[in-house]
């Protein structure tokens, strides 16, 4: 059996998700045995445009990045968006509440960047499926490395990868955590897609929703819970706009 050719690319992001792949430690060596890694700028000098599966990290800020992404789509038969930036834009969409002139001015001041393609940004930061079709999604900021391993082994075995369609609460209960609401904290766990093994509640920190909402979140029931615990919806949503800024349900 020929090994699938695999390439990794990144756009606007912190590259923390590719670090999670390195963080699989010994299992990365296993993975290298079953795929043919043809491009991964952060770890290898070699590069080829002949690949079957492309893993994309990061969101799209500029036309020059969108063009590069479209080329990748032409080359790859499967595109995997991994990490919140690629999947839904993550923190980068926080800039969408400002104009592009404002954000450029705030960061680069009056420097002359007019006409320079490096600074030619879209009005809004975009997840990659606003530019190309995405076949597989791996959410999270950062991705959960065990979920990444599971989804990759599914893809390699020809199995349709599935994300959990139940709330973080399920994992939180399995981990026997004390409910964050009982500790007086806010938590988006009840409406957020599980798969991170409830990483934040495990250390007594409320879920910030980095994995995105469930397919059909019970937002009105959640709002009632917030009210019961003395949190106004506005307060709550302001507090939890980090990852879900402007997203449906927020």
């Amino acid at each position, binding site marked *: 059996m020929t090994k699938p050719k695999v390439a990794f690319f990144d756009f606007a992001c912190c590259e923390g998700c590719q670090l999670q792949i390195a963080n699989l430690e010994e299992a990365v060596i296993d993975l290298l045995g079953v795929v043919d890694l043809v491009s991964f700028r952060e770890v290898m000098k070699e590069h080829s445009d002949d690949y079957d599966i492309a893993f994309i990290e990061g969101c799209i800020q500029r036309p020059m990045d969108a063009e590069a992404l479209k080329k990748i789509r032409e080359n790859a038969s499967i595109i995997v968006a991994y990490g919140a930036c690629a999947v839904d834009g993550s923190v980068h969409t926080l800039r969408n509440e400002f104009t592009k002139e404002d954000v450029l001015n705030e960061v680069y001041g009056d420097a002359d960047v007019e006409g320079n393609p490096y600074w030619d940004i879209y009005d809004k930061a975009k997840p990659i499926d606003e530019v190309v079709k995405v076949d597989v999604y791996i959410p999270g900021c950062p991705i959960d490395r065990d979920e990444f391993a599971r989804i990759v082994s599914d893809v390699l075995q020809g199995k349709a990868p599935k994300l959990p369609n139940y709330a973080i609460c*399920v994992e939180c209960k399995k981990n026997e955590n004390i409910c964050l609401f009982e500790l007086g904290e806010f938590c988006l766990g009840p409406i957020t897609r599980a798969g991170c093994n409830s990483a934040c509640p495990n250390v007594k920190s409320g879920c910030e929703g980095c994995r995105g909402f469930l397919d059909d979140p019970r937002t009105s029931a959640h709002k009632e819970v917030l009210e019961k615990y003395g949190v106004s919806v506005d307060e709550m949503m302001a507090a939890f706009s980090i990852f879900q800024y402007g997203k449906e349900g927020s």
Partner: protein
Amino acid sequence: MQVMSKSDWLSFVDRLIREDPSEIVGVKSKGPKFVFDELDSAEELRLDYDVTILPPKKYFLPVYEDMMKYDLTSAFSVDKMVDIPPRIVIGVHPYDLVAMEQMDKVYLGDTTDELYKARREKTLIIASDILNVSEDSFAGSMGTNVSGSGYDLLVTDLGDSVAVDVGSEKGGSLLSSYANAGAADDSVEARVAGLREGVASGYSKSVDVDKADWPGLLTNNHEHSVWEEKSDKCLECGSCTLVCPTCYCFDVNDTAALNLESGVRTRTWDGCMMRDFSLVGGGEVFREGIKERYQHRIYRKGMYIPERYGFTACVGCGRCVSACLPDIADPSDVMNKLVTSSMGVPKPLPIPEAAPAAEGLAMVPRPATIVRTETMTEKEKLFEIKLDDGMPLGHGPGQFVEISIFGVGEAPISVSSAPGGDTFEIVVRKVGDVTGKLHGMDAGDKIGIRGPLGTGFDAEALKGKNLLFIAGGLGVVPMRSLFNHVLRNRADYGEVTILYGCKDPSELLFGSEVKDWEGRDDLVHKFTVDACPEGEEWEHNVGVVGTLIPQVQFDPNDTTAIVVGPPIMYRFVIRDLKEAGIPDENIIVSLERRMECGIGKCGHCQINGVYVCKEGPVFNYADMKDLPEAF
């Protein structure tokens, strides 16, 4: 009863920790709450706890449990997990003892769960009387605040001393090996009794309905407004089922290592409040509404399980009450609200007879080899399979098997060949991962088989009867195992009529066999398609399968109808049959649900209180017609 001083009790626990080879777990504090966890010293043990976040069931049915390891590099290789370490659990409260005894009936009854059994046998229980009542608990009114059984030792912390009741030989020898206890006199027994009385009167919550009356109350109040009021607020977070000591449903998943050489099949707790609990490979969700799921949880506790096993599947621990953010999970509150309505006479739920329990390791598949394949249509492929141990499958018509492909998972598939022979046949539609993978396999490839499972068609009972077969789509697959048996033993049966419908001509299955029917004068057969696309040839009827019923002659009072098809078909065909005058008890159906474990434990295939995998998939319509979730 024996007694020891408090310091002797502490040194007993410390000696266990230091000297006993078992892992010693007990109740410890976790912030403001309590959990069962490994003990480092007796000082950590908190017998004054009210309730733990999770019940001790996590030691018998672990949150995540590796059931078997498999090797993907060889054709078929599986190792069951057998290495279960010994453990002593200290501080289990009476309501949890009751819950554990219930779980034993489920997991050690009919089809024994080997892993559960091994964990149970290797675990010693040192129970403790309740010292502080949880404010969410209503165990007092459930009669579970004390328990006379289910423990190896039962301790009562009296402050200065600890009374011990020996519940088993193992418990007794543990006590004599490690503890300095002496016989208790009447005053100790009186103090224990006094403490228990104090606890019994310390409950602020109670359920006002005797648990024996729960089934009747639920039967009569299916349409009560409480269901909607509560379920509207539900977050669907699943917490209530996950913290419950009597919930035992699970999900099974395969995880392959990244080298794709090995993997594990793991089970993990699942719960009926989650939407995908009843999702099948084809995409249908059989319990879609939140209200129906909310009802299922309460009905299961108060009606389905009582009628099946004879006990109420709620021990009043109050864990679901504490875990539920919108405050809707409390079964006592539901019962107290319902009791204001009129209570009816409990109507026994018809639990059809179950198939005989499978032998041996019920969850471990047997190796088998595909000996022949035949592509039937674009989506359906036939596989002829032989078990590697040389044994015939020994199935009856209408039974199913769990097909196992390691790394991918399991899927329930109906056997479509008639009973007998060294091999058997299945016809598989490509709808999910297992079936997709199977479609890529060919003669010589190895798969795993569990089964035969479930009840089949009772070919004996049908002898001498006139039979009207009605198959829709893939329903012809399980039905074929019966009509081929009937045709092979034609003289044993009366008139035979076969009505078979599918979407369009390209989906017609078993084309060559169907052709053979043309020459037979001992059966009537008719075909139909929902629609015939332009350009395709079709000389038969066009319309849904029900449109064939008026086209054939049968005596409604002396004909048994056998109906198999997709969920939507039943409603219409059964209506047509009833209109034609066939009595309910002469209609036989085969139903599809998510049959994951196949042995009546994982909970996914339930139609109200009935396990489709165990009491079905073949049912008499009369047994099922009143179940709200059946059709």
